[in-house]
């Protein structure tokens, strides 16, 4: 199970890559493996205002439908349109496949999240 350096991690298995005031968000390798083959990703509309904790994305695999929550408050800046035709890209490359990005209203919200080591320990404790 891969954990990539330089990213922030949430307890609901999302990763966050910070670029200036933009947070790019995806799901971790652990998450994609638990979900199984992903068949559908429903992304929010660009421009949607989300609060930290809001349900932002829906991911459907062959066996489950899961929500992905916004880790920070802000405005949806960009969405990965390739996921409409090739949702399985997340399974193949979880860290290289962003789902959507948020222009952050309050970057200090990132402070509560884990770094790579802390996340690895968190996942190991789960199993």
């Amino acid at each position: 199970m891969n954990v990539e350096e330089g990213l922030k991690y949430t307890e609901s298995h999302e990763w966050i890559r910070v670029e200036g005031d933009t947070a790019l968000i995806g799901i971790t390798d652990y998450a994609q493996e638990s979900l199984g083959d992903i068949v559908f990703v429903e992304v929010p509309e660009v421009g949607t205002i989300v609060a930290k904790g809001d349900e932002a994305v829906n991911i459907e695999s062959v066996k489950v439908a899961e929500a992905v929550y916004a880790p920070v408050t802000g405005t949806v800046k960009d969405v990965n349109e390739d996921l409409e035709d090739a949702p399985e890209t997340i399974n193949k490359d979880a860290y290289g496949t962003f789902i959507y990005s948020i222009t952050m209203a309050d970057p200090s919200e990132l402070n509560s999240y884990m770094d790579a080591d802390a996340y690895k320990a968190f996942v190991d404790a789960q199993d």
Partner: protein
Amino acid sequence: MIPYIPHSQAEISAMLDRIGAASVDDLFVDIPEELRFSRPIDLPGSMAESDVMNLLAAMANENRTKTLFAGGGQYDHVIPSVVSHLTGRAEFVTAYTPYQPEISQGILQALFEFQSAIAEITGLPVSNASLYDGATAAAEACAMVLNAKRKSRIVLTAGTLHPHTKSVLGTYFADLDVELVELPETSGRVELSTLTSALESAGEELAGVLVQTPNIYGALEDLTGWSDAVHAANGRFIVSAHPLSLGALASPAEWGADIAVGDTQPLGLPPYFGGPSAGYIACGKDLMRRMPGRIVGESVDADGKSAFVLTHQAREQHIKRERATSNICSNQSLAAIANVVYLSALGPTGFAQVSEQNISAAAELRRRLIDEIGLTDYVPGPVFNEFTLRISADRKKWDDTFADCGIVPGVWLSDLDESIPADLFSVAVTEKRTATELDAYIACAREALS
């Protein structure tokens, strides 16, 4: 007389012994004493099979078969004998939840063909393995459009919907933050101008619009301009269409509908006493993930051979669980199989012919009741196989005269909905009604009004 219970006393003792129970009564030890039924059941004693047959035959002889000109949602059509012949097969009738692909290819294929037939007649590419009935289908379609548009909460519903559909919609959305706004009729139809002003009032919160054609009066709604208006207002368009009418009339896809729904009773199912039938639902690919219920798909097995399976199951409520958007977890397999056998027996040509025959049969009786008997239309203009007249004569005399003639002449619409004027009477004429039966109706009507 044997009780038709297969276990012998020796088998029962062996089973009790295996689980460590002393007697069958021991299995009910958790039911409080005071709640246990402890007196003999009050039923007459057993009878010989021939005596039972005589008793039932005597009861059956009390039935009076009448000629049905009543519709109001359930219609009396010709049903080719192949329908009951195939649906009566044990493999279809007795199967319970037959969806394991390893052992249910026959039923899965039949349901796939049902879905394909519905997609073909509605013109919309995605359909499911059926819902409970037309009213449920309409409600589920409303739920789909509400869920498909964030922050929407308003659905505009035609005032000319069947009252039972209105009732089910009310129940479905009673405790949710959803507003159903009725589009009032103008002389038995809903006008485009009524729609456009309601769309403007609904504004941003509009999810969609639901209209039924033919409507409760049997009148065909003119849906010209409707889909453009609804889409321009950022809503979705749901058309509830009588499935048999689609053999001759414009399809929901041709009207620009996003979702088509309806009740499949006219497709090879008898009227029974109001059920069972099935509901159908069809939509475009964009709404496929929002569609509730079971969907059968065509795939390949491990050996590369074509096989049918339930597919897109992550939509279903037992997978979405607390995030489910619908409670639907079942369908009406046997009814849907009857529907697809019926449609297959007719084929596209037969389907179009039956549809046309319904139109001309109803037109014939309607013309005669107006010209020869002097009754008046409530809604002039085109209908399918049902029309509504104004009958201001004595209702009891009308009902009793026809009862004596052995005819059920139609439905008093106020019986379905008290707010409908008491003089509106709906008459259905299907391809099953013969010239002799129409003559008998005319003669009886003359007598009832004399």
